[in-house]
């Protein structure tokens, strides 16, 4: 959900500069977070919580700054951890999309294939991706292959199911109409199937990326050899470095939020929101 939606402010077509309503929406979005941080800081400063167990936000910021090492950004450990984690999560996500989206279209269009594979998918869907980690560890050992493999499974099923649902949600009449007008398979895909399935598909992509990101932390804790935010949190826990643990957690939350808002928010604006508002895509049943 975007900031403007959260604040209940209608979305506006905007230029490069932020409109007043966008600023209000942003402030409204940030207000509870700011209040929580202030309360947290106060609780620690007034001795109501022990800083060795719950460090104050200011301590976490200081630690993050040290790890960020802005004077020598090329040696910034935090950026390396973030970069490695992002690379793993995105690689897993892209691979999941490459497999799940075409498969989702096939299963959505072919009832027979869907019926044949549905029991298998239903069996695998409820399994948390992290549960595969020990198996992958035995098969591939520690390292990127295991982490990306586990994250792939985390992202795969939400993308697949959303694609299937999106395709199945398109009425056959819409397909018939376009076909009767002489559209070939490519036109059918471009003008009916893709736009029709896109709202569900984007929801699936959001869920897939979120699952990939969440799974990543657990997988890195178990299988990372050197870098990654999950590895950093795990290593910090081993040596009771609570501030660094919180830096890792905050990074995970902020990056997760940015991925959803910046990448998927933009994708949504560029596709679904634009097409639906321009009337290119309407009810297809």
């Amino acid at each position, binding site marked *: 959900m975007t900031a403007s939606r959260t604040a209940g402010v209608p979305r506006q077509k905007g230029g490069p500069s932020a409109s007043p309503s966008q600023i209000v929406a942003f402030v409204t979005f940030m207000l509870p977070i700011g209040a929580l941080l202030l309360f947290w800081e106060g609780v620690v400063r007034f001795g109501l919580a022990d800083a060795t*167990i719950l460090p104050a936000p200011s301590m976490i910021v200081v630690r993050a700054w*040290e790890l960020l090492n802005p004077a020598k950004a090329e040696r910034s450990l935090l950026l390396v951890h973030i970069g490695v984690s992002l690379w793993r999560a995105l690689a897993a996500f892209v691979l999941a999309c490459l497999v799940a989206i075409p498969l989702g279209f096939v299963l959505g269009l072919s009832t027979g294939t869907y019926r044949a594979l549905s029991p298998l998918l239903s069996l695998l869907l409820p399994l948390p991706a992290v549960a595969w980690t020990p198996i992958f560890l035995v098969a591939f050992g*520690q390292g990127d292959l295991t982490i990306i493999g586990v994250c792939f499974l985390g992202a795969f099923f939400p993308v697949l199911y959303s694609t299937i649902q999106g395709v199945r949600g398109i009425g056959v009449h819409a397909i018939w109409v376009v076909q009767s007008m002489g559209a070939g398979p490519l036109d059918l895909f471009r003008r009916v199937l893709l736009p029709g399935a896109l709202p569900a598909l984007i929801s699936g992509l959001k869920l897939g990326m979120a699952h990939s990101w969440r799974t990543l932390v657990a997988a890195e804790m178990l299988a990372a050899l*050197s870098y990654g935010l999950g590895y950093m949190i795990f*290593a910090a826990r081993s*040596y009771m470095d609570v501030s*660094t643990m919180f830096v890792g957690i905050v990074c995970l939350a902020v990056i997760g939020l940015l991925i959803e808002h910046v990448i998927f928010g933009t994708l949504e604006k560029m596709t679904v929101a634009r097409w639906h508002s321009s009337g290119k895509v309407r009810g297809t049943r």
Partner: protein
Amino acid sequence: MSLKGFGWLKWSALAAMVAVGGTLAHATTGSMSIRVGLQSVPPDEVYTAKDWGARYKLKVEHGSFSSGADILKAFIAGRVDIGNGGSGRLVTMAAQQPELFYIVAANQYGGDRYGVMVAKDSPIKTVQELKGKKVGAVTGSGTYSTFRVYLDNNGLKESDFQIVNMKVEDLRAAVQQGIIDGAVAWEPHVAIAETMGVVRRIQSMAGVNDSPNFVLVNRKFADANPEAVARYIATLIDLGELISSNPQEAAKLAAGQISKKGVSINPKALELSFTRIKMDPKVTDALLAELIPVAESMKGASKIGAVPDFKKLVRMDFYEQAVKLRQASR
């Protein structure tokens, strides 16, 4: 008999001698490599921080693992040539796959690396005073086994306490918050918590037993590369010597290595921790004997069929060779 007319034989013999000599020279002075499984524990951090193999022309490829169990999994799968493990896992391997490995050295050991801690402001001063109270521990760990021996030696029983099974990383916070009244933990966790000023160590397990970890080497690798194994053990002797003689320097190295992961640690905590750990790699009968009660207990619990003959698994010749290598390289 004259060798006249047998010039070809003379030259062949000379060529063979050169070849053999070259091979031997390579074996003793040439570069070689070994794959080692290491954990995120302070002695292994010191090992990773420096190229200990350079002195012996040994390339040590470090594999980093989150636990001893993971190292042994990799060891069994053939992904590392050398690993180390605690007594429980070693006994299981010795009972099930004795043909897979040799015991070539001792790793960290010593009862002092286990301790009982309470909150800084707690009135409790002895383990006796913890009777009837909640004590956190990692049940099933070597630390907990040693604690049980301590209780036996001091006329106490497990049932005198409310034992709470926890992760070692969580014990400090639980003690600090009063969730548990005391905790049994291993180094460096006790030393870190003490250095943070939030706990007191009220009892060391020094003298109870040594609870050694051992270094295991893959048999096939050792048989094919005996020199590499000896050189590796020589590096372990060097490491042990540094940790024992200069814990401050070792702590600096370990803290520097840990900081490369983005983790901040007080070197004083590591220094304190190193003063409590023994690191002499020599496998002694006394250390081996500590495996017997562990094996008997596991046999009693039907986890293994018979108590393995550990002495048959030990290869001291690598250690002896390592000692010679160190002397030769001085």
